[in-house]
């Protein structure tokens, strides 16, 4: 199933897909939050809804947004990209709003949500994730536009660099900055 020594595939991973490259990592983290937020909300609503209804409903909402973002980022079609932009934006607005709300009015949140304290219970990943999501969507859109331009101008020989970060720095040894997207161990 795995042949790590396979020859490099120059253009097999389309740079305009939101699923490949750094997007692979992004979708993985989104999937993780989709699972944890929705499962947690499900348990809380099923077992002790009266204890903190606002917090639990917000958790459920966050879970839905994460599921939507995961699926659409993994799909990567033009329609999916539009939904992904909306879900990442809603997510960013949600984490900012709920984060502020939870600090201003702790009584409403006797139990935490994913977005409480701007996601402090989750290493602030919920705050950073939508930002990376939106940046990634923007960058892949640019690559996509470039590629389509290059394809339409058939003989524009040098335009094929599609904007993908990998593939250009061929061998091991290079690579520096873009590694530590999640470097908080």
């Amino acid at each position, binding site marked *: *199933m*795995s042949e*790590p020594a*396979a020859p490099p*595939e120059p253009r*097999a*991973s389309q740079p305009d897909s939101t699923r*490949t*490259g*750094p*997007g*692979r*990592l992004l*979708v*993985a*983290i989104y*999937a*993780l939050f989709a*699972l944890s937020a929705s*499962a*947690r909300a499900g*348990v809380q609503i*099923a*077992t002790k809804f009266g204890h903190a209804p606002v917090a639990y409903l917000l958790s459920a909402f966050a879970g839905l947004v994460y599921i939507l973002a995961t699926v659409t980022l993994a799909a990567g079609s033009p329609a999916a990209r539009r939904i992904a932009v909306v879900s990442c934006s809603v997510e960013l607005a949600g984490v900012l709003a709920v984060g502020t709300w939870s600090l201003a009015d702790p009584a409403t949140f006797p139990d935490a949500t994913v977005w409480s304290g701007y996601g402090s219970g989750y290493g602030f990943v919920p705050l950073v994730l939508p930002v990376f999501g939106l940046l990634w969507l923007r960058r892949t859109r640019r690559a996509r536009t470039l590629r389509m331009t290059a394809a339409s101008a058939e003989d524009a020989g040098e335009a094929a660099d599609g904007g993908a970060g*990998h*593939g250009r*720095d061929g*061998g*091991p*040894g*290079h*690579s*520096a900055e873009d*590694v*530590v*997207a*999640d*470097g908080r*161990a």
Partner: protein
Amino acid sequence: MSSVNGAVPTTIIIAGLALAGYALVMTARNRRMSVPLLAAVGVLEILLLVQVGLIVARLAGGERPAGLATLIGYLIAMPFIPVAAAFWGLAERSRWGPAVIAVAGLVAAVLMVRLHQIWPVIHV
């Protein structure tokens, strides 16, 4: 007894962090998924299954945590983390495959801490 009990979660934390570190080095060096990395994921998977077995044994012995539903959720989800990461990482033909594995290693370590919070008899 408690030290024996704590040996597996502690091992998982160390193994998870080591796997994450190794995978991140692979990402930094622009390497793809490799057989050694997959083998390490397999080791983590086995450790997690052992941990699930130990907890199920305690539950079968009649002990119950306060957050039983949450604990069961963790028991179900835990074994899928390395498997899902391996498949998702293998689908990637770049350095970002190992990066996915790094996430799985970190998550495994965090899960052990969360397990202890859910049910303090699970020592770390």
